[in-house]
């Protein structure tokens, strides 16, 4: 009954807007991204607002007794997920630079982020 989806390649954009801890959104979003990698789709990740904190280097979560899942971002490359975008305004507002991130990202402006969203087929915002 299900349609055959093989051969269809859509542009998926995962928008990460929330801090890594405090809520589960960031962790469960990453779980979707990892599953999505098996579908041979065109995948991009965007980090904006407090979402930029998700890819910070040196996360220590022992004090709050929550799993530090940030090493997983570094594993994305192994899944052929290499298009990571950070919104410049969100980064600047928080006093961060690309040196603070544990993965390689492309920094884009708010306007460019809007264009990226417009050009994507499926935008999943977490």
């Amino acid at each position: 009954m299900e349609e055959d989806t093989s051969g269809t390649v859509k542009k998926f954009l995962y928008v990460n807007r929330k801090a890594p801890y405090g809520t589960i959104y960031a962790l469960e979003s990453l779980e979707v991204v990892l599953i999505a990698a098996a579908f041979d789709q065109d995948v991009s990740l965007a980090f904006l607002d407090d979402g930029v904190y998700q890819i910070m280097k040196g996360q220590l979560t022992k004090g709050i007794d929550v799993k530090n899942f940030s090493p997983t971002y570094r594993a994305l490359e192994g899944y052929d997920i290499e298009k990571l975008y950070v919104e410049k305004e969100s980064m600047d507002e928080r006093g961060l630079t690309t040196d603070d991130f544990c993965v390689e990202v492309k920094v884009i402006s708010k306007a460019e982020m809007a264009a990226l969203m417009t050009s994507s087929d499926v935008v999943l915002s977490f």
Partner: protein
Amino acid sequence: MKFGILVNEGPYTHEAADTAYQFAKAALEKGHKIHRVFFYHDGVNNSTRLTEPPTDDRNIVQRWQKLAADHKIDLVVCVAAALRRGIRDENLAEGFRISGLGQLIESGIQADRLVTFGD
């Protein structure tokens, strides 16, 4: 148009589940198709048959069940998110099924639009 719907919040605490339902209902009334509703994060709590709201309030779980039965909509609950929150086949409401995140990606590929309802 063929829509896929993603519900990321639980019932009652957050209005997202209500809005998703109202959106689905309105789209169907306009002649659109909803092929799947995928429940993720706390959204999985929309699927427990143990839900029992006061009788003068809407029953969100039953509302999904009826909409799905009337329009042959696939109600899919993410297995990983469900197990984290104590939703399993034993307490799953009829009309819902537990499956993997692949069903969400598939919905994104198959639907003309995938619409997210969440915080």
